[in-house]
């Protein structure tokens, strides 16, 4: 019989991958606004370039792979990757930096592995890490969060992005840089000496707001049930616990808890990076472990390592471990006494 029928169910929720992706993209708005407010027009240029490059590269690869371009572009996953990469890069980055980042994110980390759903690593983080290792100077050149009014003008921004003109007058250390570079000083001394803490004491001027913005966006996504709470909560709790345990009242250069939570890419990572479902663990239990391990790694690299921030490394390391976590965290199914391991053999 040639009669082939579609299996039940015949009703579907109005949800779609496209909607999920667009919601995630929309949820970055508060953080994005905070970034623009403190760092100026460079953030917008970053984002625009990343989006253009990513979509173009995605379309190109789809064309080369002979896939329907419109069908795959419309899932908006490239858009989200581009936004995350654009937000993670220092503002006023030269265009080629963004381009190289997009190539590694979209072409290498995503499409070469088979496209959406098949990438074992977070594409945006691959792009970010490749840039961080290859172009460390460019990647640590953050402008100081001086506010939109005092930020580089549009002309300066364009010359920086497209003509590689340096923005010497504007650069400054990020809060985490400040802590990393001030080994030996007490926390109080750092707060006093570093200009970045002159306006805000918790985690450096501007950065608190940026992180709070991403936190807001993340909570919105949680409310919309775009992802489960397990991974972000596990990560933040672990980070809090670790930084609390290692904070000895400011007698050395160990950063206090709130500085850890509200500086760097903590909130962006917790709600937008590690929640990328494709490259994370699957079950709820697995996501708890996944998030907790990322939190631990982030703290260890920040505290003991050479890099000031560590979200990208931690996420990529745990991407490696995700399938392994999956193997040992199968949920207990209905009618079973205990959960199984995926390595078990079952004879029925």
């Amino acid at each position, binding site marked *: *019989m*040639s*009669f082939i*029928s*579609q*299996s*039940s*169910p*015949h*009703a*579907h*929720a109005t*949800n*779609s*991958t496209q*909607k*999920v992706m667009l919601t995630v993209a929309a949820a970055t708005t508060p953080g994005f606004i905070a970034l623009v407010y403190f760092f100026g027009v460079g953030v917008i240029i970053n984002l625009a370039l990343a989006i253009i490059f990513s979509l173009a590269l995605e379309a190109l690869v789809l064309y080369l792979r002979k896939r329907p371009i419109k*069908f795959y572009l419309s*899932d908006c*996953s490239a858009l989200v990757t581009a936004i995350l990469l654009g937000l993670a890069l220092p503002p006023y980055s030269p265009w080629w930096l963004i381009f190289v980042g997009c190539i590694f994110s979209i072409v290498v980390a995503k499409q070469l592995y088979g*496209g*959406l*759903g*098949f990438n074992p690593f977070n594409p945006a983080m691959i792009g970010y890490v490749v840039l961080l290792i290859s172009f460390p100077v460019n990647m640590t050149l953050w402008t100081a969060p001086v506010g939109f009014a005092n930020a580089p003008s549009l002309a300066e921004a364009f010359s920086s992005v497209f003509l590689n003109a340096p923005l010497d007058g504007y650069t400054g250390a990020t809060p985490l840089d400040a802590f990393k570079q001030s080994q030996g000083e007490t926390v109080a001394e750092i707060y006093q000496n570093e200009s970045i803490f002159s306006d805000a004491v918790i985690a450096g001027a501007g950065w608190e707001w940026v992180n709070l913005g991403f936190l807001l966006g993340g909570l919105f996504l949680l409310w919309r*049930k*775009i*992802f*489960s709470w397990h991974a972000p909560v596990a990560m933040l709790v672990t980070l809090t616990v670790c930084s609390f345990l290692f904070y000895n009242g400011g007698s050395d250069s160990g950063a206090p808890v709130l500085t850890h939570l509200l500086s760097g890419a903590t909130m962006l990572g917790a709600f937008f990076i590690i929640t990328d*479902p*494709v490259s*994370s663990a*699957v*079950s*709820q239990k697995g*996501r708890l472990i996944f998030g907790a391990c990322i939190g631990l790694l982030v703290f260890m690299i920040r505290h003991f390592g050479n890099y000031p921030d560590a979200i990208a490394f931690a996420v990529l390391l745990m991407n490696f471990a995700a399938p392994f976590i*999956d193997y040992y965290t*199968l*949920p*207990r*199914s*209905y*009618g*079973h*006494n205990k959960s*199984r*391991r*995926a*390595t*078990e*053999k*079952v*004879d*029925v």
Partner: protein
Amino acid sequence: MTAKPITTELIATSAQHARKIFPIAGGVHPPQNKSQSLQRPLVSARLPEKVILPLAQHIGAPAKPLVAVGERVLTGQLVAEAKGFVSANIHASISGTVESIEELPIPHPSGLTGPCIIIHSDGKDEKAAQDECENYMELGREELIEKIRSAGLIGMGGAGFPTSVKLAGQAPIEHLIINGTECEPYITADDILMRNYPYEIIHGVELLAHLLGNPKDIVIGLEENKPEALAALRDAAMGTNIQVVSFPCQYPSGGEKQLIQRLTGKEVPSGKLPIHVGAVVQNIGTTYSAYRAVRYGEPLIKRITTIVGDALEHSGNIEARIGTPVSDLLDQFGFKAKKSSQLIMGGPMMGFVIPNADVPVLKTTNCIIAPSKKEMPPVTPAQACIRCGMCAEACPAQLLPQQLYWYARSDDHEKLLTHNLFDCIECGACSYVCPSHIPLVQYYRAAKGAIRTEREEKAKSDRSRKRFEFKQERIAKAEAEKEAKRLARQKAAQEAKKKLEEQKAQSGSSEATPTKPAAPKVEDERARLERTLASAQTRLESAKNKHQEAVAENSDRVEQLAAKVKQAETRVEDAKSKLAALKTAPANTSADNSQVSAPTSSSTDADNPVEKAIAKAMAKQSMSPYEKVKSSVESLTNRLEKAQQKHAQAVSDSGDNIDALALGVEKLKEKLDAAQQELKELAPDEPSKEAAQKEELDPAQAAIEKAKAKALAKQSMSPYEKAQSSVESLTNRLEKAQQKHAQAVSDGSENVDALALGVEKLKEKLNAAQQELKELAPKEPAKEADQKEELDPAQAAIERAKAKAAANAQLTPKEKLANQIESLKTRIGKAQIKYDTAVEENSDNQEALSLGLNKLKQKLEATEKELAELEE
């Protein structure tokens, strides 16, 4: 009966219905869409013009039809009875005549056909007698279950498991749960039923409780979106120990396992039945029908079905006869075919698409949805899985649907089992929430099917192995027996020889050389070897033929066949060398001598039994076959008698050669039987021989007559010669018959079959004759030597094999090929016709037929090519 208005006090104060509700995992909340069909009261469907009653509406064996085409049946009359324990009766749902019993499309996701009884209505709806019973609670349990069984009751919620089977269990029941959940969107059939017949339902629950040994926990479970039904049931349950509870909506809380968890907090262990946790779940509709069946003797011939959807003018619930075509019901609701996108039987979450509206309503059909294109748009193509995990959150069985999806896609059955695929209840919650619109459930269903098939195949291959091993064992045993018999014969012969020697020693006669008595044994051996050689040669020939064919066709079996040829060759060599060895043996030579000299020296020592036997054989030669056989029967009878006497003696003396003697007796009996058989066969021939001048019936007969005449004429002709001539004549006849047959085949004559049979029979006769010839051959080695130019048996066998293969051995290769082409052409013609009809009927075996056709065509081409080559 109309429902009472909801009285909140009643619900709130009713301590009877207080119950802890347990949470279930996962679940989704699809739009309910229940209000459409609740706008109108329950109506009765008009009497359908015809009903289609599929024989398999339930889980288990299809029912067996009891009525004949053309028979008149009454409403409620049993038309098909349950076959086996897990099966269900089927009753006529209208009165009328049985129009046909045939394969028709039935409502099934496969869209396949199934056997159905079609009843054409007479419009009278005349009821068959029903067995009412007012005091049914006083009846015995068995009797009540029998009533339910004979009413053809099955689970009306969807699965269709025979109710009586569920009730017949002996395990103690703690919870009787009546499922009024109806958690699927759109469906309101149970809601309407509960609103309209609450008292009947409560009676039904009491009945079921009675049958299950009055469990202490009896509960009817409803989702909280049915307040009217809840109130009506609570009202009816007043004064009973039946709890009526409602709980928040959460698809699929109406699943059997989920409902048990919701109401008792217990989980049914994986792979087990609810009975393992002391629970029995019955559908509300089943409960109602059980009451009707027991109280009024009403078989299951109608049910309430929700007809709903935007492609209808209005939606509602209808009490329809089982077997009513869906189109008939849709018409009553103003179905607009243009607007509809598809027809779904069952709910939107677990129902299936029906191929067209001609299929009937089943006992399990609780809903028919006729959605508009807007309401249920065609499925969008699946996007990539982004592992978002929404499916895992929705899964009521707490599985990992996305992992199952990946493993199902890659056919990793082992991993699927590890991930508890078979705990999936196919509720569709995962597919429902999937943002990438992946048809997850279909993947699971396919994987389950594949795993089941795999298991069946495994079981089959295990069975096959056993059968194969058994067959080999049997063959080995048979061979071992043969070998044992042969050894026993040998032993017996040796003993006989010994005895002979003893006798000789007693009589003092020393003339006979010790080799002489050994002769028969050696002869036996030689005959055996010759037979082996012959058969080996035949085999070699056929193997060679096959091999050549294979080479010609460039088949993949060439190597295999080459190996076979080689094997056959070694066998022939082996046999030949053994034979040669035997011939060169001195014993053999002397035996030959003695045999050769036997005919000439007719007056030899009468004391020597061997000589005597030879003399007798000589005497036999001059007799006609009939006489000869007759005398041999006589002599055999004598010998048998003697042997039996000897055996009896041995038994009474308890001599140590009893076994050997017994064997001898056995053997003689066999021989006697054979001889008698021969005698019988010859008997009818005899008169015709005597009346030899009768008109000749046919050329073949004539040939035989001629051969016989010849045999008579040549008085000195030995049985061997006779047999040979008969073989010759038979060969002639066979050839002629085969020519006739070939002719008939090429002419497409009607009596091809008859001729083929004739050929076959002749072949058999020829075989028998050749066998005889072979058996005779060793007795006449001298003659054999003389007739070297004649066909030897092996050669004949080879010829025969060739003849068989081509059915026209006598024709030239060209003619042979031409014949082959002719027959191939006719076969192709037939195959083409078959194929064409198959295509027209869109039959399943199109493919096979087209393959066969192609093969035939290829053969034809090959043959034609061969012919062309020959002609060049």
